[in-house]
């Protein structure tokens, strides 16, 4: 039975955006594969290059997490998983964040101890087309070559992340956008070694490790808060998502409703909503009214994926509008 309580799927327009995001993530993976190979070939003994290389390896995680999470979220809700599989996004987000945090910490210790013990990085030569050339030149060349493309891809992904309300995509785009700093940082480190300043290498490595750790901690906070059912926030976690207010206003505007309040949690891409309504005259209206209200809420925003409307005689405390001064306006 395909009842009206079947969970909603994405609209056609969103499907197209999603396809675009999937294509961009595959492009990212292809680009990273080239980057990782190139950087590995010129890795040498430089700590900064090692840190940049590890960051590139870690950059595989968000696109892969995105692609896997997407497949899983597509599954329909079942009796065993009655809320659907959208939380896969949150799990993917947390996994990427933990990987970043761990590697960032490891690299800070590794680079810091190199700096303290005064390890001088050795960068020798390679034979290229019959010429002996200093490997440092190749390192700098490769790093500057790979600095720009991620910034462009990252900007494109950021736009899609907002459209799709996808936090893995956001984290990924955010990392890509900052990638040029890593590349330029390690180029500066190697250039420093070139002019005889051995500590430039470790210092650049520390800078890169710091940026990895910072990315990890920031994303870990966001992922944990989402999994802990923080109220729904915008895709960049800057402010509460406006849909909660819109739902509340819509419900309060209904003729049979005296007051209403909602709580909204982010299931990853989509929201699950509990709406509490206080009917007028203390009487529960007909089932048809509930159904209309439900359809109206779903029509408000594609992210409203699953909504329960609960009639109550008083709004519960954790609902935002319960403490709102305007709550009396419909009385």
């Amino acid at each position: 039975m395909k009842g009206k309580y079947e969970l909603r799927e994405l609209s056609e327009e969103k499907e197209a955006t999603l396809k675009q995001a999937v294509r961009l993530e595959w492009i990212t993976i292809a680009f990273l594969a080239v980057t990782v190979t190139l950087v590995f070939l010129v890795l040498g003994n430089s700590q900064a290059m090692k840190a940049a290389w590890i960051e590139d390896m870690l950059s595989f995680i968000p696109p892969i997490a995105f692609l896997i999470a997407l497949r899983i979220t597509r599954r329909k809700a079942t009796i065993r998983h009655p809320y659907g599989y959208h939380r896969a996004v949150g799990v993917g987000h947390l996994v990427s964040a933990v990987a970043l945090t761990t590697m960032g910490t490891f690299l800070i210790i590794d680079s810091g101890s190199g700096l303290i013990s005064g390890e001088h990085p050795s960068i020798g030569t390679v034979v290229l087309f019959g010429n002996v050339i200093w490997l440092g030149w190749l390192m700098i060349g490769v790093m500057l070559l790979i600095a720009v493309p991620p910034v462009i891809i990252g900007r494109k992904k950021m736009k899609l992340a907002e459209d799709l309300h996808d936090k893995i995509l956001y984290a990924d785009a955010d990392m890509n956008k900052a990638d040029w700093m890593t590349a330029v940082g390690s180029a500066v480190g190697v250039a420093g070694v070139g002019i005889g300043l051995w500590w430039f290498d470790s210092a650049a490595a520390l800078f890169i490790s710091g940026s990895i750790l910072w990315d990890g901690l920031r994303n870990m906070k966001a992922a944990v808060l989402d999994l802990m059912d923080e109220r729904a926030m915008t895709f960049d976690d800057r402010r509460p998502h406006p849909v909660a207010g819109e739902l509340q206003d819509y419900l309060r505007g209904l003729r049979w409703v005296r007051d209403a309040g909602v709580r909204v949690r982010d299931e990853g891409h989509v929201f699950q909503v509990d709406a509490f309504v206080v009917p007028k005259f203390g009487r529960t209206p007909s089932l048809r009214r509930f159904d209309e209200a439900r359809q109206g809420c779903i029509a408000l925003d594609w992210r409203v994926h699953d909504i329960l409307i609960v009639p109550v005689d008083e709004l519960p405390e954790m609902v935002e509008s319960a403490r709102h001064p305007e709550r009396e306006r419909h009385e």
Partner: protein
Amino acid sequence: MSKLSAPRLAWAVIIGALLGLTGCGMTVPTDPDGTLEGVTEGVLRVGATPNDDRVTIDDDGEPSGNDVELVEDFANSLDAEIEWVVGSEESLVRDLETGRLDLVIGGITDTTPWSSKAAVTRPYLEVTEPDGTTLKLVMLAPMGENAFLTELETFLTEHEHKDER
């Protein structure tokens, strides 16, 4: 676009700085501890451990053999006198670390466990063992003395070409 110009600015600064420094007579790479400068027209302090017939030590402690000649040629190319030190690999690597030696030779291969204590050169010779395994012989230089390492590797590569002819 205004944000995109940040990496471009950074490139310009790096490339400009490098060009500027090379323009002022600074060579890239440069040794932090000035090994190449000290050795040129000076003394090259070389540590040797015996290895087959490529590095042999005679009764009065003088090393000889093909690899010894190779190092002598390198020293000549820098107008340097050689001061030989014969010892065990570990003691030689220790001297390399503390700056008492500039170069260590004698049967060291590219899979050497000393790679975190010393700069390993590119292989200068491949030797096939009786059991069929191929060993790639390398030399050890002080860690991070990149101008010296570059000079040495350039010499070894050119020498390798002469060998083939």
